């Protein structure tokens, strides 16, 4: 996974990760993210440049969703490709996190 860009406005953190959210890269993403969470109630993660996600990445998303829920907000994902949607559907993630498919352009 390469450098991730963060933008924070009015309690909403926008995150733009790139590459793979796997066992090797997810712990670093989680550590990095936690440095930006002060005052954040909602996280929007843009998946346009995410190639795939394994259980390591799913755990990070699950923990973020729980944390944002406690703060009265939530986690949403945008521009998610079909291969990742398939993984989400397999593990029941579509019911847990707000997901916008890659085809649904803003």
């Amino acid at each position, binding site marked *: 996974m390469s450098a991730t860009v963060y933008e924070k406005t009015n309690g909403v953190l926008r995150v733009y990760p790139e590459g793979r959210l*796997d*066992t090797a890269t997810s712990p670093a993403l989680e550590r990095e993210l936690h440095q930006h969470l002060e005052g954040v109630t909602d996280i929007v993660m843009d998946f346009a440049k995410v190639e795939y996600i394994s259980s390591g990445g*799913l755990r990070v998303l699950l923990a973020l969703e729980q944390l944002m829920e406690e703060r009265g907000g939530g986690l949403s994902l945008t521009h998610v490709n079909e*291969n990742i949607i398939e993984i989400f559907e397999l593990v*029941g993630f579509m019911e847990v996190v707000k997901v916008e498919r890659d085809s649904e352009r803003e």
Partner: protein
Amino acid sequence: MQEMTVSATMDQIGPVTEFVNTQLAQLACPERIRIQVDVAVDELFGNIVRYAYGSGTGPATVRVDVEDEPLRVIISFVDNGVPYDPLSAEFADTTHLPAKERPIGGLGLYMVKKTMDDISYCYRDGQNILTIRKSI
């Protein structure tokens, strides 16, 4: 048959994935299947890194075989660590539970079981051998 032996450490997940992808590219593997295999490699190699050698480390071998008619790729993950059959662990399907109530473990193996054609384990000559098969 092609194989790659590395030390069972997190930083080897990238090189092992590239090795497997090189084999898949030669078979004109569609991207969707390549990604499912990559996720399986991540989960299974990751398990060796975390559990096979306790707090130490040791070697891990990834072996890629190809079968014809139908075209299938067979990938084995071999380690010399403590004997452990990950398939013996009872897996409860918790995917219907709300996020808060989900246990964290078991998700990776569940994904591998769902996406691969089959997965098998054997312990032979002091080695754990976990094998997945996937039609291309």
